[in-house]
């Protein structure tokens, strides 16, 4: 299912025409059961995912675990390169 990214109000929107090729139903995001059949196609499709080198990184306000302050992602790359690793404990 193709959908326009529903970025939060405090973030920059992606350029017109950019689309997130990711289902956006909130209730499915935090799944209770891992399903390889559901998740594996996303890994296979990552190369075709619209965001890629040469493009512009979207910025969102994220909560800093350290102090609770909101950090705008674009501050991370304001002065130099930033490495972003996405993940979770599990």
């Amino acid at each position: 299912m193709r959908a326009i990214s529903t970025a939060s109000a405090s973030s920059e929107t992606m350029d017109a025409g950019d689309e997130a090729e990711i289902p956006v139903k909130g209730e499915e995001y935090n799944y209770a059961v891992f399903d390889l059949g559901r998740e594996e196609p996303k890994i296979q499709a990552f190369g075709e995912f619209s965001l890629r080198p040469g493009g512009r990184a979207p910025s969102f306000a994220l909560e800093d675990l350290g102090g609770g302050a909101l950090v705008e992602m674009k501050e991370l790359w304001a002065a130099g390169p930033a490495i972003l690793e996405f993940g979770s404990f599990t």
Partner: protein
Amino acid sequence: MARRYANRAVRSVFVYTREAHPGESYRHHTSMDDKRHHARAFKEHCRVERPILLDDLAGTAHRAYGMLPNMTWIIGRGGVIHYKAAWTDRADIEAALNATLDGLERRVAEQLAPFHSERLAWRVRDMEAFRRELERAGAQAVSDFFGPRRED
């Protein structure tokens, strides 16, 4: 690695997403408090020194960047994407970062222009170590991935 490059104004952060393999011990998030709790456990257990930033509960940033469970991206000054990887491999990231920094340094003097290239990379996939990580999340996480345990 982050410390080695800190003097070159390279920032390194961990963006905390949904639980990739929820189980009895670490369930799927139903609130930001759940997420904070899990992220603190992760920080302590894995001795994470980088800042940990929490995506919102709906996974807004995670979805915008492709929603894979352990991606790494390198973003250049001003927001240009330099590197996009489906998985996190230290050696691959370091090679990409070195190439990025090298190109940026030489860019003006040597009249360099960036161009897009793609390749496949390799990562170690230790299934036994991965099973142990799933066991830490709970038996459900193990059976969700490997299938139900057969009773002999």
